[in-house]
């Protein structure tokens, strides 16, 4: 499967009935491979798997599912053009005695399933009309409908907001109480510490141990994951940054059913964080500033001038950059080489007399790869082969190659491992320190508090709280996001 690479070696792992067991590790540690072996997608070269004490051979996904193994992968595997109900019963359609699809029963069963999980999504909504977070919930509903003995969740909350995550956790607890064994794969322990009983940590394809959760703290976990006893330290914060003039100003900006009455300013050297639940209108707001959506009401001012962008092209010309939430769909051209991704938005720089100076272009790309510590064997590698964190750095490199002054970053560390996360935080601080304005959208509370100078809480499309991040109590933020109180 991976020629010449041992993805997993000598891993012992056990799961008890009714237990929630966390599987932690950096990207490439072997978590995905382990899951895929249990799911029947890959076959182990050595070793044994037992379910209920009996050795089993998981030849394919069908066998694994038959034995009660249900897996929820990171990337939602839903058909975008079909409805929620159709997706829930895809491949095991409910039929009438005549062998036709029983739509009445399909809709009713779908509704019951969604209600049981407390998911407020219409069963006949098309998947393509749902946000990434909502799709994740549908994915979970789909996996749970199968009589699962063993449920594996691969980073299920990566794109969920606090509220959605809480709802999911409540559900997981209920499932565990009913006797299902649950493996919870994650990068972060903090968010699931209250949920899990034991933690197994993988590093470089080997297990570095299984611990009861109460014997671990953040420092220890980071050390075990990275193999680095020094563990990560909090960033330098605002040190060395000068807050300058206003770069971006929104005045009562609104779009029907998405957000309303949004006003704020972003200054040079500043990191402003916008946080809120999925569906709070955050991505829509960024895309409106970037010209990918037309503003309904209100005004956007860039450098003191009122602007009305009709395309991302306009916005980019005016010094705006967007790192999109949907990395593989909007950020990285996965079939193009790394260096071409880096220069995609700034090709004009390398043109002399109508032609591209390829050498100059490649030298620039190599410089960015070095400066941003993008891990790639060659600038000619297809960008899709890089890990999530490195793809994210690639998108940053693309915008740092332009004249952009205003950086809009939508969930910049989603699906990125612990080490790469810290590097991205460092890059964000460097961008701000270079006198640019950074507007970050994030639902990761820890991240919000770590990088933000100022924090705006968004709820149902409106700003419900503005905070200066100076010993800010997380509870105050959570309160604003979920209940709309700014205290």
């Amino acid at each position, binding site marked *: 499967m991976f020629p010449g690479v041992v993805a997993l070696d000598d891993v012992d792992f056990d799961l008890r009935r009714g237990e929630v067991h966390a599987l932690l590790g950096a990207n490439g540690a072997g978590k995905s491979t382990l899951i895929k072996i249990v799911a029947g997608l890959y076959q182990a070269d050595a070793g044994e798997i037992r379910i209920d004490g009996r050795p089993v051979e998981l030849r394919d996904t069908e066998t694994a599912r038959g034995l009660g193994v249900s897996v929820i992968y990171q990337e939602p595997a839903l058909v975008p053009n079909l409805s929620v109900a159709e997706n829930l019963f895809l491949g095991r359609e409910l039929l009438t005695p005549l062998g036709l699809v029983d739509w009445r029963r399909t809709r009713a069963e779908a509704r019951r399933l969604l209600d049981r999980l407390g998911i407020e999504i219409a069963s006949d909504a098309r998947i393509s009309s749902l946000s990434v977070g909502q799709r994740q919930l549908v994915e979970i509903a789909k996996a749970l409908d199968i009589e699962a003995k063993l449920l594996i969740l691969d980073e299920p909350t990566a794109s969920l907001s606090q509220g959605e995550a809480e709802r999911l956790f409540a559900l997981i607890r209920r499932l565990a109480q009913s006797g299902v064994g649950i493996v919870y794969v994650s990068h972060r322990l903090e968010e699931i510490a209250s949920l899990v009983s034991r933690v197994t940590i993988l590093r470089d394809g080997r297990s570095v141990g299984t611990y009861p959760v109460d014997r671990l703290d953040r420092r220890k976990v980071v050390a075990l994951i990275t193999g680095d006893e020094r563990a990560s330290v909090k960033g330098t914060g605002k040190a060395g940054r000068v807050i300058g003039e206003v770069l971006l100003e929104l005045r009562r900006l609104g779009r029907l059913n998405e957000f309303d009455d949004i006003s704020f300013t972003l200054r040079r050297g500043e990191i402003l964080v916008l946080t809120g639940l999925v569906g709070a209108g955050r991505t829509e707001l960024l895309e409106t500033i970037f010209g990918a959506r037309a503003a309904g009401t209100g005004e956007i001012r860039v450098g003191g001038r009122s602007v009305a962008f009709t395309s*991302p092209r306009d916005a980019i010309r005016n010094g705006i950059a967007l790192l999109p939430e949907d990395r593989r*769909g909007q950020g990285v051209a*996965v079939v193009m*080489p790394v260096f071409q991704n880096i220069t995609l938005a700034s090709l*004009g720089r390398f043109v002399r007399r109508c*032609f591209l100076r390829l050498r100059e272009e490649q030298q620039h790309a190599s410089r960015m790869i070095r400066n941003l510590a993008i891990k790639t064997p060659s*600038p*000619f*590698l297809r960008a899709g082969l890089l890990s999530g964190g490195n793809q994210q750095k690639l998108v940053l490199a693309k915008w740092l190659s332009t004249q952009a002054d205003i950086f809009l970053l939508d969930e910049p560390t989603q699906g990125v491992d612990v080490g790469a996360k810290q590097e991205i935080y460092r890059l964000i601080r460097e961008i701000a320190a270079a006198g640019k304005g950074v507007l970050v959208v994030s639902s990761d509370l820890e991240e919000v508090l770590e990088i933000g100078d100022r924090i705006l809480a968004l709820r149902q499309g409106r700003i419900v709280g503005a905070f200066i991040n100076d010993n800010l109590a997380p509870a105050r933020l959570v309160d604003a996001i979920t209940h709309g109180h700014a205290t």
Partner: protein
Amino acid sequence: MTGLSAGSTEIGRRVGVAFARIDPATVGPSVALGILFAAFSLLSPNFLTRSNFTNVLVQSAPLLTLATGQTFALLMGGLDLSQGSIVSLVSVVTAGVLMQHGLLFGAVAGLAAGFVVGLANGWLIGRASIQPFIVTLGMLYIAAGAAMIYSGGSSIFGLPQPDVDYFFWFGGGFIGPIPVPVLIAVLLIAMAHITLTRTPFGRHVYAIGGSETVAVMSGIDVGRVKVIIYLVSGGCASIAGFMMSGRVISGQPLLGAGDILLQSIGAVIIGGTSVFGGQGGVLRTVLGVLVVAFLVNGLNLLAIDTFVQRVIVGAIIILSVWVNSWRRRRL
């Protein structure tokens, strides 16, 4: 220690560069071409002769020209079904106008008619955002119909001297030992290759084929790039139509109605350009055309009937995509 690691990264870089230079997708068609040459040389004494090679190249010049334009459309993830009809339209308009006003006006009017069709394709695809398949399928009918209307459904023969001799020169003449249509095709291929590899426009074509959304979000004027792509494809078809008409010194309303469109798409695919866009290039297309051209030529020399030839060409189109997808999955 530092010296060692610096050395090894340098080697790593060089290996990366070397791998990037040898395009693995070109290996398949190159090997196929080599096998064809070896086999036909052994089986037929007439294959490996200068007159045969000249003949094959002259005959494949229009296809090379068409497929060069088609490559742009496939690279951006589209295709151009109207190429054959453009050939017909250019043929009758050129011949018709030549009849009254001479070759210069005939050429200008004929080529302009073809470019207008390409521009219309481009506008509908790039600005009105209609699927390339739908637009060019519609245009296939419209341009073919226009060719029939203009010519009244019959061929335009009996072109006046001396224009007809100059006209033939473009389709069948020589400069020294070099056939004119081959020269035209080679010049177009060179221009297309440089455009795709060395200009921002070329990069934008690949970016749109790779991911249109990423291209939009990177500030590329996707609509404009698409207009130009279909202008290039239609323009290449126009030039091919002009050469083909010159070769038969007449205006034929059905000149492009046959196989030529499907051969054009087939050759690009055999060359290894992805039908999903984003990967491939003009040089691969040249390989694809040569494989088809020499295969057909060799089979003709061996007196294998044309019906069998079609079966073989079809099988090769499928086989080449199969080999490519198998190679990609393995990597």
